[in-house]
């Protein structure tokens, strides 16, 4: 197991939003974490990466306990988060953004070429200020910046959010290609169908709890997944 999470609880102020979640990701897998808005997915991600201190439970990366460590240590644990909404440095150029991603990487010059080969659109825009890129290009930049850190594990928080359907397809194709490079991926998404089509396994989260776990191909046809997404409005049909 590359990433292991056990009984993790976290929240804001006195409000607990993740209620004892356990999950794991094996090396080389794409694992989806699905759920509707407010299910607690992003809070869980923040807790895993160290942006939020867990209240309870543990996180292990490659067998080493990482829960409670500051977020900047996650790079040395080979774990990188691509946050929701991209969070690129919008006043910096594409090149500067990418080099910032490889700040700790002594071979960043070489890796920059590799990333630009992978995302030719970024090469075309190398000197452009990142804030002027389209949504899809910004997402590519966020993925490229993450790759510059040579991660073993990528945590992707809603990479398809706000993108046009064609761009979503491209982003998911890139995610699949990253797995082929040997990167393990935990993919947090609301786009269940697209995620389940590229993931090996997935977890479905609802109200801060995991309600389902299984192979992605099987979850695609699971009525509970639909119910978890449609929420209370679906209840009448359900019952």
């Amino acid at each position: 197991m590359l990433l292991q999470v056990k009984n993790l609880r976290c929240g804001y102020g006195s409000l607990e939003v993740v209620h004892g979640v356990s999950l794991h990701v094996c090396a080389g897998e794409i694992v989806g974490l699905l759920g509707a808005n407010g299910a607690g997915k992003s809070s869980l991600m923040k807790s895993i990466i160290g942006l939020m201190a867990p209240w309870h439970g543990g996180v292990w990366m490659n067998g080493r306990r990482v829960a409670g460590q500051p977020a900047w240590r996650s790079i040395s644990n080979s774990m990188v988060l691509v946050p929701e909404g991209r969070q690129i440095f919008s006043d910096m150029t594409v090149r500067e953004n990418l080099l910032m991603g490889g700040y700790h990487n002594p071979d960043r010059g070489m890796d920059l070429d590799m990333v630009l080969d992978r995302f030719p659109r970024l090469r075309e825009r190398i000197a452009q200020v990142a804030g002027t890129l389209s949504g899809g290009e910004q997402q590519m930049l966020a993925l490229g910046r993450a790759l510059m850190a040579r991660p073993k594990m990528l945590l992707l928080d809603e990479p398809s959010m706000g993108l046009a359907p064609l761009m979503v397809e491209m982003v998911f194709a890139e995610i699949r290609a990253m797995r082929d490079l040997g990167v393990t991926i935990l993919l947090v998404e609301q786009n269940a169908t697209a995620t389940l089509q590229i993931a090996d396994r997935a977890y479905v989260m609802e109200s801060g709890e995991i309600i389902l776990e299984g192979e992605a191909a099987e979850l695609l046809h699971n009525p509970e997944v639909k119910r978890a997404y449609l929420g209370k409005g679906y209840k009448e049909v359900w019952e």
Partner: protein
Amino acid sequence: MKVFDRRNELMPRPELEQLQLERLQSLLVRLRRNVRRYRERLADLRLESLDALASLPITTPEDMAESFPYGMFAMPLREIIRLHSTMGPDGAPLVIGHTRNDLTQWGKLAARQLVASGVTANDVIQVCSGTGPYRGALGITLGAELIGASVIAEEAYHMDAQLAMLSNYRPTMLVTTPSNALELMRAMDQQRIDPPSLQLRTVLLSRPVDEATREQLRAGLLVEVQSSFGIEEILDPGLCVECEHGHFHVNEDQFLVEIQAGELLVTALCREAMPLLRFQTRVACSMSRDKCPCGRTGVILKPGNRLDERLLVNETPLYKGQIAEMLSHTRVAGRQFAVDVLASRVVVSIQLTEDIFSDMMWPLIDLQRSLELEFLARLGAPAEVRFVQSFE
């Protein structure tokens, strides 16, 4: 080593235990949300370790019977695509539901057993339940389809028809009940059919048998003999895989097992329609965590006898209470009777009182036959009715 699902059957213990914990935690959430009986019992109970399993409530066969027909379902009926029935305590009917995913999973679990028994896409499988019921035939068919093996889609009840199928279709595997396998062996002997003249390589029995019976079948049919072991209220076959070393490995990625006071308790982690928490199987069992040369990491079960009054008559489950209940609806209601249960039939001795006595033979023979037919129709068990003057 023949393994169908290497990832799950050979999963290292630490990963397997993490998976079990995750599945158990999400199962508790689903049970609390979707099954009233569990919602009342679980309240806000959460589980942080598999070691705390014993703190969770037990599900009894009586719970299932009280919830008949759909009270234990964790899915709305429109998501259930297959309903099976089985026998609960004292013959009470139970309903087992399957969603589409449940059937897919069942096929995969059955395929694990078939592959462990040497089945490949080149094999032909004959499923014969004989005269007794074998509800696992569907699971075997689903599993065989996944492997690509051919299943003979005909059920031969008469022994001659079974033998004809064995010689015409040339199956390499026979899936059947122990009683039928023994019967077949005797029939082949009587008809002087030489086992090597058939293509049969393996017999997969519907339930575990003692070593003597296994050896008898091995020697009589000149085949490998393997057994499946499951729990009808949960999944049968599918709970375990019997490996080439004769060990029943639990499919622990899908089932959590524990032994409590010698009884096997099973938690179905992945069943969608009817997941059960710590189900009391009423089957005696012992468990071992010894390493097996086959490489499977699931714990090894050694199944024993039933712990309740359930009998097996010609592979049909039967409770003695059902016999009294059945007789109470017939002309001999209220008469004293004694029951002797044999492997192939029930022998019922009924006291011959003045009101049913006749000096002619045919009314008594008629009564005797109608009672025997009633046994078969209502209980599915062959019976032999005898009239006796008095009980010593």
